[in-house]
C-alpha cells in the first residue's frame, strides 16, 4: 500500500494559488520499505441500511421520516441512512428523559445506578472490536487508535464513574450532591464514542438522564451504544440519542425542560451555546478549541520528544482539541530537531483507517479537509515554509499529508487559529520567559507540553502555562481519573476525575 514514492525537488511553494496536491511533495525521504496490507476485518460490524433515533428506550423514525447519509470518509461511500431529528423529536426526547429522571433513574439508589454503569462498561469491553471497527469506518481514524485508545478509554470512563454513583457524599464533603435533572449533551466527531462516554458516564452516575446529540458525520457508534443500553436493560429514557444537524442541538440547548448543557466542539459554536442559556438557570460546561504549545528545551531527550511531537499533532489526524499544534523549540537545537522530525515524518503511514499499520487515517469530512487545505494555503501565502513527506495518498477518500511549517510568525493564521488537522507550526524561543510568553499568547488554554530533563523546570513551566492540562515529557495522554478542560476561551468545567462529577450535581447544604 505505502508504495515507494519518488523524490522530487522543490518543497517550497511561492504562493497559495497552486493546487494542494502539488505542495511540498518531495524532499522528504520515502519509507525505504513496503508494508503488506494488514486490514482489520469488517465482518464484526453489521451495518443496517437505516438507523432510527433512540428515544425512551426505542428506535424510532424522525417525526417527518427524514434521514441523512453518513459517509465513510476513507472511501466516500455512504454507510447508512440515519434519522434526521426534528424539533418535535427533540421535545419528545427531553420529555422521555424527564420522565425517566423523575420516575426511575433519579429515584434509584446510587448502588443500583452503579451496577447499570458497570454493565455498560463490561459490554463495551466485550464488544470492543465491533466498536473499534465501526468507529474507524465512520470517522476515518486509524484502527489502532480506535482499538487501543478510544474504545478502551470509553469503557474505562463508564467503569470509573460507575463506582462514584454510590459514593457522591465522599466527593463533596459537607454538601449533599443532587442531580441537576435532564442534561443536553452535544459532542464532536473527532472522538465520537469517547466523547459520548465523557458526557454520559458522569451524568448518569450523579442521577441525571441525558439527551445526547452526536455529530452529524459520526452518528453510528452512538447508535450502537444505544443498543448497549438496551442490552444492559438500562431503564427507558435514561439515555436518549438524537442524530441530526446543528439545529437539533440548539433546540436542546434552548429547551425549557433541560437543566444542564454540556458541549464539546469549536469555540465559535461554544459561544452560541453560552448565549443560548443566557438568562436561565441551566448549568453549562464547555470544552472548546485549542492551540497548544509543545515546548522543547535544549536539554530535552530529543528522540523521545520527537515521538511526543508526532503523537501530539498527528494523533487522530490532528483532529484533536488539545493537539500540540504549535511547536516551540529552543533556538540552539531547532535545526537538529527539525531535521529529526522531517526524518520521522517520512515513516508515518497515511492511508486506509482499517489497516493496522496506518498512523494517519482519513480526515473526517470533505468540509474539514477543505478547512485544513484553506489554512495551509494561508500559511504558504503568509510566508511560512511548508514541508510534507513524500507519501502516496489513496485515490479516494479525504486524506491530507502530515504537514510541517517552519519560519512561522506568531501573527500567522497557522499559529493562531485551530486547524484541526495534521499541521504543525514550528516557532523558536531563546529563554524560558520567551517560551512562556509565546505559549500563553493565544485566546485558547486547553493544553501544553514541556520537554526537558530538569524536574524543577518542568514544575515551573507547568505552573506558568495558562492551560488546563500540562503534559511533561509526554503528550495526548488521557485517563478517566484525570480532569480535562480548558482555561480562557478553551471553555470551562472539567471532565474526568472527581471534578467531572461536579458538572452534573447541584450542591445543597447538609
Amino acid at each position, binding site marked *: 500500500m505505502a508504495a515507494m514514492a519518488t523524490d522530487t525537488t522543490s518543497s517550497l511553494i511561492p504562493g497559495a494559488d497552486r493546487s494542494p496536491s502539488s505542495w511540498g511533495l518531495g524532499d522528504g525521504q520515502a519509507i525505504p520499505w513496503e508494508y503488506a496490507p494488514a486490514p482489520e476485518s469488517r465482518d464484526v460490524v453489521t451495518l443496517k441500511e437505516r438507523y432510527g433515533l433512540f428515544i425512551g428506550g426505542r428506535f424510532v423514525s424522525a417525526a417527518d421520516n427524514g434521514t441523512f447519509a453518513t459517509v465513510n470518509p476513507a472511501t466516500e461511500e455512504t454507510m447508512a441512512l440515519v434519522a434526521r431529528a426534528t424539533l418535535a423529536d427533540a421535545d419528545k426526547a427531553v420529555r422521555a428523559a424527564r420522565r425517566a429522571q423523575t420516575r426511575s433513574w433519579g429515584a434509584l439508589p446510587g448502588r443500583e445506578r452503579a451496577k447499570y454503569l458497570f454493565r455498560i462498561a463490561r459490554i463495551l469491553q466485550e464488544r470492543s472490536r465491533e466498536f473499534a471497527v465501526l468507529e474507524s469506518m465512520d470517522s476515518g481514524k486509524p484502527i489502532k487508535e480506535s482499538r487501543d485508545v478510544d474504545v478502551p478509554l470509553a469503557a*474505562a470512563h463508564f467503569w470509573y464513574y460507575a463506582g462514584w454513583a454510590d459514593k457522591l457524599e465522599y466527593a463533596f*464533603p*459537607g*454538601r449533599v450532591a443532587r442531580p441537576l435533572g435532564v442534561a443536553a449533551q452535544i459532542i464532536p466527531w473527532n472522538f465520537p464514542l469517547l466523547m459520548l462516554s465523557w458526557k454520559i458516564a458522569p451524568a448518569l452516575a450523579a442521577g441525571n438522564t441525558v439527551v445526547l446529540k452526536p455529530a452529524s458525520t459520526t452518528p453510528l457508534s452512538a447508535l450502537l451504544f444505544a443498543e448497549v443500553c438496551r442490552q444492559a436493560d438500562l431503564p427507558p429514557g435514561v439515555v436518549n440519542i438524537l442524530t441530526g444537524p446543528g439545529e437539533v442541538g440548539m433546540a436542546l440547548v434552548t429547551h425549557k425542560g433541560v437543566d444542564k448543557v454540556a458541549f464539546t466542539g469549536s*469555540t465559535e459554536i*461554544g*459561544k452560541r451555546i*453560552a*448565549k443560548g*442559556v*443566557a*438568562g*436561565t*438557570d441551566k448549568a453549562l460546561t*464547555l470544552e*472548546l478549541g485549542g492551540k497548544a504549545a509543545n515546548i522543547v528545551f535544549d536539554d530535552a531527550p530529543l528522540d523521545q520528544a520527537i515521538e511526543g511531537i508526532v503523537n501530539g499533532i498527528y494523533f487522530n489526524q490532528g483532529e484533536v482539541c488539545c493537539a500540540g499544534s504549535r511547536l516551540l523549540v529552543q533556538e540552539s537545537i531547532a535545526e537538529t530537531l527539525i531535521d529529526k522530525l522531517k526524518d520521522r515524518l517520512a515513516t508515518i503511514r497515511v492511508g486506509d483507517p482499517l489497516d493496522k499499520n496506518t498512523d494517519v487515517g482519513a480526515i473526517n469530512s470533505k468540509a474539514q479537509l477543505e478547512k485544513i487545505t484553506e489554512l495551509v494555503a494561508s500559511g504558504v501565502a503568509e510566508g511560512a515554509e511548508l514541508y510534507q513527506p513524500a507519501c502516496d495518498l489513496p485515490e479516494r477518500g479525504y486524506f491530507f499529508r502530515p504537514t510541517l511549517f517552519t519560519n512561522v510568525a506568531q501573527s500567522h493564521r497557522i499559529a493562531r487559529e485551530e486547524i484541526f488537522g495534521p499541521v504543525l507550526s514550528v516557532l523558536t524561543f531563546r529563554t524560558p520567559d520567551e517560551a512562556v510568553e509565546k505559549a500563553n499568547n493565544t*485566546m485558547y488554554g486547553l493544553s501544553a507540553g514541556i520537554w526537558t530533563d530538569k524536574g524543577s523546570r*518542568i514544575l515551573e513551566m*507547568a505552573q506558568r*502555562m495558562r*492551560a*488546563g*492540562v*500540562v*503534559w*511533561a*515529557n*509526554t503528550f495526548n*495522554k488521557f*485517563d478517566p*481519573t*484525570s*480532569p*480535562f*478542560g480548558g*482555561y*480562557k*476561551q*478553551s*471553555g*470551562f468545567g*472539567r471532565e474526568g*476525575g*472527581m*471534578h467531572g462529577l*461536579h458538572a452534573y450535581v447541584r*450542591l445543597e*447544604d447538609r
Partner: protein
Amino acid sequence: MASPRVEVRKTYKLYIGGAFPRTESGRSYLISGADGTPLANACRASRKDVRDAVRAARKAFDPWAGKTAMNRGQVLYRVAELMEGRREQFAAAVEAAEGLKPAAARTVVDRSIDRWVWYAGWADKIAQVLGSSNPVAAPYFNFTIPEPTGVVGVVAPETSSLLGLVSRLAPPLVTGNTVVLVASERRPLPAVTLAEVLATSDVPGGVVNVLTGYKAELVPVLASHADIDALDTWGVPDELRTEVELLAAEDIKRLLRRPTTVAESRFDWLDDVASERPEWIAAFLEMKTVWHPIGG
C-alpha cells in the same frame, strides 16, 4: 463664646490601583439614606474608569496570585483586624445606608468581619480540598491543582451594602484573583469606606478596585471587557441579567450566577451556612492537571 465646630465631611471617591481618583468623567450622583436624608455625592464612574480599573487589576494579578497561600490568608485576615478597629465607623455607615437600628447595624459589621476571617482561612486549604492526585492507569504521576482564574468582575448586591459585599468580594480574592467591583448603586458608601480600609491594609493596590455609579451603565462594560476573565453577577439587576450573560458569552467568561429563584433583596447574608460556601471560591478557579512520567 466659641462657635460650634463645623464638621469635616468626607469625599467619596473611586478606588483604582491603590489610589482614590475621582471619576475621570467628573460626574457624581446624590446618595440618600434609607430615610431619604441626603448623605453624600458619590462618583458616577464611566466606561473609562472601568477600563482603568481592569488595567490595574490585570497588573496586580501576577504578584497577588504569586504570593504564598499562607501569606494571602494573612493579608486578608488583616482586613478583618483593621475593620475590627473601625467597627463604630462601619456601623454608622451601614446604619445610614440601610436604615438599620444601631444594634442590627453592629451585628452586620461584626458578621462582615467574621466573614473575612472565614474566607481568609481557606487560602492555604482550598488546594487540598479541591485538588487531587489522580491514579491514572499508566506510569505517570498525575495531579490536579486549582489556580486563580484572573481578573474577576464582581457586581455587588444592591441591598446588603457591606455584609453582602464582603461575602462576594472575599471568595475570588482568597485564591489570588484580582477584582473590579461595582458597588451597590443606591448604597455605595460602605463600599468606599471598605476601600479605605483596604488601602491601609496589606492588600496590594490594584487587587481590589471599587467603582460606584449606575449599574446599567457599568455592568455591560464589565461584561464585554475582553480582559475580564470571570463575572460574579449576583448583584446584577434582573432586567440586565440576560444582556450581561449574552455579552459575557462573547469571550467565554466564567459566570457565577444568582439562581433566578433567589430574589437579591431577600437573601439572608446573616445566614452563615448559606453565605459561607467553598463553591463560591471554586467558581473562580481553574483546575490544572499535570502529567509527569514515572521512571527513566
